[in-house]
């Protein structure tokens, strides 16, 4: 197989509040022999909040990010669900609206760039599943996670709206019964926990504006995984990770029940199974202690 190579859009979180995600992404990519070219020119995607204020500006900025992936002639890989949604949404809107694309390109021309629509945008989870292949992952597992019940937490912006998300997936993911993360858990040798909240919202985007709602959602998510007898949770989204890992006190208070589980980034789980050195996975950066390694 030809060596896989992608343009990596890290997003902001991986460089600040979830450094462990950045570390484990690079460790896993290295282990799998995937080359990631970091788009150091990229800006923030707006995280759905800039979109509320200035939709056009967010389109221009996201188009600029994609334009840099196009310059490398590479598929853009994201490692944050919200980056994925905002970037893929921008691509979808520009590719389907010539007028809008022209308006955006008029702005990009001021800085000598052009959005062409030639690069795909996909989340690292789907790059691994669609391009690398889970069968190959299975072969490479050196430490099967067979003693663990692992609760997948998908994160809204990787699975909804499914019509948009499935534009780039090789096999369609159903928003109500997704399988990608479950399949990755199984490939790593773990037992996947089925629970109602696995496709639900963690509340991240309303954390400041509606703290009670946000904390209740976080609490319900962790409680669902606990009731499903999970040993820990795993997520492809650093924003979900922040909620589930750092906000357990507020979440417990909101739902009137002590909730807490270790939460791993999908890259960390994969890294453990593939035998990446522990220190390369950044497990010590978690607030909820990862006590099983």
């Amino acid at each position: 197989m030809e060596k896989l190579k992608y343009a990596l859009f890290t997003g902001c979180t991986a460089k600040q509040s979830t450094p462990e995600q950045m570390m484990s992404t690079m460790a896993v990519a290295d282990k799998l022999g995937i080359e990631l070219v970091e788009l150091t020119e990229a800006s923030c995607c707006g995280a759905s909040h800039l979109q509320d204020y200035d939709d056009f500006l967010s389109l221009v900025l996201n188009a600029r990010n994609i334009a840099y992936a196009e310059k490398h002639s590479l598929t853009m890989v994201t490692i944050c669900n919200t980056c994925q949604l905002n970037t893929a949404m921008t691509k979808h809107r520009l590719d389907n609206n010539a007028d809008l694309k022209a308006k955006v390109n008029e702005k990009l021309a001021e800085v000598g760039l052009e959005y062409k629509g030639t690069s795909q945008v996909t989340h690292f989870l789907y790059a691994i599943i669609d391009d690398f292949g889970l069968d190959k992952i299975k072969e490479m597992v050196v430490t099967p996670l067979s003693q663990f019940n692992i609760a997948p937490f998908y994160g809204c912006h990787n699975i909804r709206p499914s019509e948009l998300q499935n534009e780039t997936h090789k096999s369609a993911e159903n928003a109500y019964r997704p399988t990608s993360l479950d399949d990755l858990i199984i490939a790593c040798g773990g037992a996947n926990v089925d629970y109602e909240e696995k496709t639900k919202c963690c509340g991240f985007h309303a954390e400041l504006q509606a703290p009670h709602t946000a904390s209740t959602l976080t609490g319900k998510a962790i409680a669902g995984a606990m009731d499903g007898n999970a040993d820990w949770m795993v997520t492809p989204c650093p924003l979900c990770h922040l909620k589930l890992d750092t906000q357990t006190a507020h979440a417990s208070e909101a739902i009137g029940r002590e909730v807490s589980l270790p939460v791993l980034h999908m890259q960390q789980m994969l890294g453990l199974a593939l035998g990446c050195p522990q220190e390369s996975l950044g497990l010590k950066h978690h607030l909820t202690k990862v006590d099983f390694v």
Partner: protein
Amino acid sequence: MSTHTITTQKVNFKVFRFNADEDYLPYYEDYNMEVTSEEVVLDILNRIKWDHDGSFSYRRSCRHGICGACAIKVNGRSTLACKESMNDMVDIFGSDLVIEPLSIKRAVKDMIIDKGDFWDKHDAIHPYLISDVEEHPEHEHLVTPEEAEELNEADLCIQCGACHYACPVVEINDDFFGPAAFAKAYRFEADVRDDAHVERLNELHEEKQGLWDCVKCMECAEVCPKDVDPIEKITKLHNMLFKEGVATSNVATRHAVGFKHSIARNGVLDEGGLVLYSEGPGIVKHIPVALKMFTKGKIVPPWGITKSDNLDEIKKLVKSSSTAKF
């Protein structure tokens, strides 16, 4: 000529049963049926009533996806029973299907719920044109195709409640208007004949009930049987708040605007700076968690942030492409 084969398969239905007048608690009844590939979910509800238990209750009327009466949940997914093919349901969920009303806590009898909260919210956003119409106008009020286009799909809503009862915020916060009411509000906000833009927006952005409490889970976009895309309308209403000068300075508006400032300065976010800008003095409540995060290496000080390369491009674009003011 193509041939079309009708296939059948066995499906186990677990059906929610409850009569508020008689039952203390709801229960589930099992029905095992042969289902054909031609049937929709409503056919199954009909067969339960006609073939098994005449007391089984549900709402139905048009059977054509127009009246919005028959929305229920299948395996937790809001669905318009008359539009949803049984084949698709089995494809997604397998042959064990759970049939429930849109909201269990609002159940009155079996699939029938008290939809009062939905209608109250619908009423609250003034879902009608507010305009001083001359009694004897000289000519009709012309709306250009471009202006009509602005309503987008918002006009297609059939008030089935699928999105409302799929919204996790509605479930938690009784005051929240919910996606259907917002989409309906947008339909009139975007109508050039309406004269109450600002008044309606003033109510739409109030804390707890309003737009800023949306968690952006995209459930409403996923579930809508008429492709109204409520979350897109919510974003457009957010944009209108700033455009019409209705937005006031609060944690939500500062949070949205703060992204622009942060991007203009660093390209990437300054996460800590953004929370500080959004919260103002309210930042104190975040200090306990922030301290813990700091000790775990999760907080980068402003001077430690790696700015985007070619930052001058970003600064230039933020200046030239901004369309909103605050």
